[in-house]
């Protein structure tokens, strides 16, 4: 592991715009290794309740690994991670897994796994599906839904569980433009609602502009910049370019 610390780019007033209360996640010199490859290296980071954090960076920069780490799906190979013990968090995957059953049951199963009675879970699932505009498809086999509809169904799963923390891995990467707009609108509504904390990885900068209060730029498994969203989008970093090329944000530090 390369332990040479590189300077982290931060804004002059590094406090993100929508700040918040207690720390939800605290990462101290965290490294994650898969075989001989370090997917994350020397990541120290604190995310507070109420923050809307965007993770940007090229493919293979460690965004998904960081999200999985925050969700507790993997443990660090080095360093320490503190996660909130009592909050409900949901991770939305780029291609959400649909059980081979109806849309309604796919939403209800999350609640059921957390102890709700099946009948109550189904009732709440119906409400959640209405919330994301899928009420008419509640009894359809979820596997036959379009990818955009499946992404909305996954959002309904998160909504029905009243998640305090929503982690999203490229939520709009594999869906077409129209479906992307619908999902982005839903996410904006979520972010403005009861949800406390949002951490998402994204290629399209549009989503960063709409949702993020803070941007973490990752490259080669390291955090290269940690900035308020406005500053990131204005390219405030010396020599940085945040223009999107083929949907991939480019910057030089």
């Amino acid at each position, binding site marked *: 592991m390369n332990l040479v610390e590189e300077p982290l780019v931060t804004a002059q007033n590094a406090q993100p715009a929508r700040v918040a209360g207690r720390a939800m996640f605290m990462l101290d010199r965290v490294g994650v290794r898969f075989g001989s490859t370090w997917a994350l290296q020397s990541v120290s980071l604190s995310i507070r309740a109420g923050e809307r954090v965007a993770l940007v960076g090229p493919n293979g920069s460690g965004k998904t690994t960081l999200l999985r780490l925050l969700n507790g799906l993997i443990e660090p190979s080095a360093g320490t991670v503190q996660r909130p013990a009592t909050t409900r968090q949901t991770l939305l995957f780029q291609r*959400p897994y649909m059980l081979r059953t109806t849309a309604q049951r796919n939403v209800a199963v999350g609640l059921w796994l957390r102890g709700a009675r099946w009948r109550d879970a189904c009732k709440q699932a119906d409400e959640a599906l209405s919330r994301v505009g899928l009420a008419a498809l509640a009894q359809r086999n979820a596997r036959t839904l379009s990818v955009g509809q499946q992404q909305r169904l996954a959002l309904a799963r998160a909504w029905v569980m009243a998640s305090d923390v929503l982690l999203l891995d490229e939520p709009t990467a594999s869906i077409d433009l129209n479906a992307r707009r619908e999902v982005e609108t839903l996410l904006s509504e979520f972010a403005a609602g009861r949800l406390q904390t949002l951490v998402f990885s994204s290629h399209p900068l549009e989503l960063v502009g709409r949702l993020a209060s803070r941007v973490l730029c990752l490259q080669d498994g390291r955090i290269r910049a940690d900035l308020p969203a406005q500053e990131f989008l204005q390219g405030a970093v010396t020599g940085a370019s945040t223009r999107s090329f083929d949907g991939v944000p480019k910057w030089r530090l």
Partner: protein
Amino acid sequence: MDTIPQATAAALHLLASLDPALLSVVGRSLAVSMSACLLAFGFGVLAGAWLGVSRFAGRGAVLAVLNTLLALPSVVVGLLVYLLLSRSGPLGFLGWLYSFQAMVLAQTILVAPVVMALTRQAIEDADHAHGEQLTSLGAAPLMRSLLLAWDERYALLTVLIAAFGRAISEVGAVMIVGGNIDGFTRVMTTAIALETSKGDLPLAIALGIVLLMVVLTLNALLAALRSWRHGVDGAATQVAPVGVA
């Protein structure tokens, strides 16, 4: 000895006339193999699903043994069950030797590894692809294995059919522990072996035709299931065709 065309014509006559001796052997065969498959399926799916998601020291060795058991010769299973059930064996007190139960037990032991190994593979593949999402939804490993088993139920149905194909077509185990007693433990495969050695080819050929029809029906079911699944949600699972061992 009859010529083959004459024997085949006589066999077809036996089939057409629904010969009682023939029907009783076919019925017993189906009953033994179905019972064995259901027992093996109940145990094998649970154990296989658990193996598919669990990680523990020595798992590789367990899988190696399991895969070896896939090639377990039916006569070896017959011998093992014979030893277990013989009067001086640990299960001798049951008095099951040369009975319907003995044949079911032997075939259960024979096909349980098939169910376990195929289930383990199906669940492990599904877990690789989707297990993390179920964990993220709040499913602990045991619940994850059950959810994945339920979600892969059509793949597991094809496992059941494959297991039945292995059970109905084996001869060694039922011969040893059943004893091929007429009207009591005689099944299709043991009857074919006996009638052939006696030179009663019509009955042997008629039973052979029924056995082939059963295996053909199973393969037709597998194909129909696969194409239906493909139509329902685009999923496709490769399962080896059923063959006569």
